[in-house]
């Protein structure tokens, strides 16, 4: 399948390995990955902080870029069949916020009335990595080997906005050599919440403290998740406290040990 990668701004700038591993994994499974070079960001930070007017051009830009990627090649597009992002949160924003912002801004006379429908069309073919693998490509054993003790944190947006359910766990269980340990109170938020982590830093930290305690009870070497943002938060705490557990994006585990050799 020909698939467009939406790397997400955070992975692009700060955590490129999550996006690189997604490319390496999909190519290993025999798919063709394209990276629409015009892409930037989904606008979630703006929307979730209340800046919908400022988010509007970012949303419009995202829709333009991926609409073109999805357009058949005969019509000048990239002819991809799906868009994938290594982030539940950014896909949640594309799927659940873009049309909402477009409608609100259209009501204020700031956005084109057709934008919401275009955003919905792009969103309908945009998938989070575990969704793409399990639902679209119909694979759970991706042939990876990862001989480490790992615990999985289901991020809030993948769980409650996208309802990925146990798809990431099914993928992890099929990884050879991986010792998967259940995370206590796994579904509790890690406290990131975008600008919440700065605006309400004390509460955010209190939530993080409990997440770190849960991670520690698992005695894992690695905590994984489908979102670089939540991993940045959990990892930021683990690093500050020198816990010794590291954070690794789900895509990197599925790419398999030694995947960096393909870089």
């Amino acid at each position, binding site marked *: 399948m020909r698939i467009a990668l939406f790397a997400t701004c955070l992975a*692009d700038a700060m955590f490129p390995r999550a996006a690189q591993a997604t490319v390496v994994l999909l190519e290993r499974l025999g798919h063709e990955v394209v990276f629409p070079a015009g892409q930037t960001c989904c606008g979630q930070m703006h929307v979730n902080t*209340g800046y919908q007017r400022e988010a509007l051009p970012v949303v419009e830009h995202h829709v333009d870029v991926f609409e073109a990627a999805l357009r058949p090649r005969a019509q000048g597009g990239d002819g991809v069949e799906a868009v994938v992002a290594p982030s539940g949160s950014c896909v949640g924003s594309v799927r659940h916020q873009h049309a909402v912002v477009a409608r609100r801004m259209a009501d204020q006379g700031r956005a084109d009335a057709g934008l919401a429908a275009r955003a919905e069309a792009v969103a309908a073919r945009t998938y989070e990595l575990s969704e793409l693998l399990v639902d679209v490509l119909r694979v759970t054993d991706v042939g990876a080997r990862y001989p480490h003790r790992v615990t999985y944190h289901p991020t809030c947006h993948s769980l409650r906005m996208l309802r990925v359910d146990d798809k990431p766990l099914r993928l992890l269980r099929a990884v050879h050599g991986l010792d998967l340990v259940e995370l206590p109170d796994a579904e509790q938020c890690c406290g990131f919440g975008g600008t919440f982590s700065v605006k*309400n830093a004390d509460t955010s*930290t209190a*939530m993080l403290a409990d997440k770190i305690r849960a991670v520690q009870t698992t005695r894992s070497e690695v905590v994984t998740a489908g979102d670089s943002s939540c991993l940045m938060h959990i990892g930021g705490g683990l690093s500050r406290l020198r816990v010794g557990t590291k954070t690794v994006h789900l895509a990197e585990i599925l790419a398999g040990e030694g995947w960096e050799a393909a870089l």
Partner: protein
Amino acid sequence: MTTFLGMPGLPVATERGTLRGPDTFPVAARKALGDTQLRKNLGHATSTIRAKRARVVGELDDWEELRAAGAAIKADVMARLPELLVQLEENVTARGGHVHWARDADEANRIVLDLVRAAGTPDDPVTSVVKVKSMATQEIGLNEALAEAGIAAVETDLAELIVQLSDDTPSHILVPAIHRNRAEIRQIFLDHMPDVDPGLTDEPRVLAMAARAYLRRTFLAARVAVSGANFAIAETGTLAVVESEGNGRMCLTLPQTLVTVMGIEKLLPTWRDLEVFLQLLPRSSTGERMNPYTSMWTGAPRTSGGTADGAPDGPQDLHLVLLDNGRTATLADEAGRQALHCIRCSACLNVCPVYERTGGHAYGSVYPGPIGAVLTPQLAGMHGHGADAPAGGDPVDTLPYASSLCGACFDACPVRIDIPSMLVHLRAKHVETAQAQRRVPGLPASAENAAMSAAAWVMQDAGRFSFAEKGLQLGRLLARDGRIRSLPPPLSAWTTSRDVPAPPAETFRQWWARTRGDRS
């Protein structure tokens, strides 16, 4: 009397401060987070009730259908509110009750006060009333208003009583004294409960018996009761209160005069609709299949109810005060009106990771937790961050941001209120209000606004974005051993407790251009 309904009015600013606390949420939360007793009680209580709720909800295979039905009924009520309220008024009146309409808190308090005064005589005035636990009367600050007029309002719900005796404020919709432990409760009883046994221990049963004895004396002497209502049935004029202790039923049956204060959104069209809500409410709120006491009353009794003297049983003088207090303004906002679907079960509080750690007082409103964060700003109004806002902003304005948007509240809500989407909507409203205020000449944009505008300018163009990424890569200079331990404000709020990894030597798009650049 109904002409103002359905017409958007301005949200009310309540003078009694029952919706607007003294501190912003971050400031109040910081204090609460340091309270060990509070953290322990909250952690224990919320996790216990979460487990109970999950168990009883899991028993029903039609739970999702029930939630959908509850949401649909409430949406229908909001669409037809004026007409249904008139129907309710007609049916209550036809069965011997009296209906009063209150635009705001002050009007409601005045109405109740007049009714309480009218229940007495010049020689024998009413000096106290008994109260059924009610959010609406807390919202209007009724107890304080009655106290100013020399009338004592005695709370009869055990937890409310504890809060009242200690001159405290509730911290949870359903478990108002969730922040207290047994030893504290014993001390509160010893210090403030009239005629209490000085040998009182802190055993739960002993404490409950002490409260029982005190309340029995109070019930038997009471001439007026004030209640809220969980539901009102438009087609019959029936009011309903659900509770666990039975003290509410004492209030509803013993006194001669019963005054019910109810938000106009508590309405249900038909008796049949109760079937849905009497399943949704107890399972969501106390984690019980059914609540121990469901009291319903329809007008004043006119036939003999079996009292010794053959007089009709129960209160003879029935009043219903229908309260707006910002609700029609809330109804006018299509994206915000779902907040009026709330049945005050408090399931969203119990699953909220923020509430679980800060407790209710941090919200500064009688409505705490996720529902408080969306209801309070709509009832009380947000003020933006204009020139005259207090430092750190208006406390109410900080409430929509008191959430990580984790979405647990939406999943728990028995009437499917999409609280996370409403929080995002209210944040946008807040920013737009603040921006409109800043458009006054001479006022600079806030630092946050400037940063957001700059980021948006960068994020709408890949060239600008990759240029900005190169700037970010300079952050590697700040890192030691691959991590950054300290950043300047406002990002210092992050680095006080969390590291930041060093930016990568090569961004993703640089890698792509280097390895696959010829492909697209």
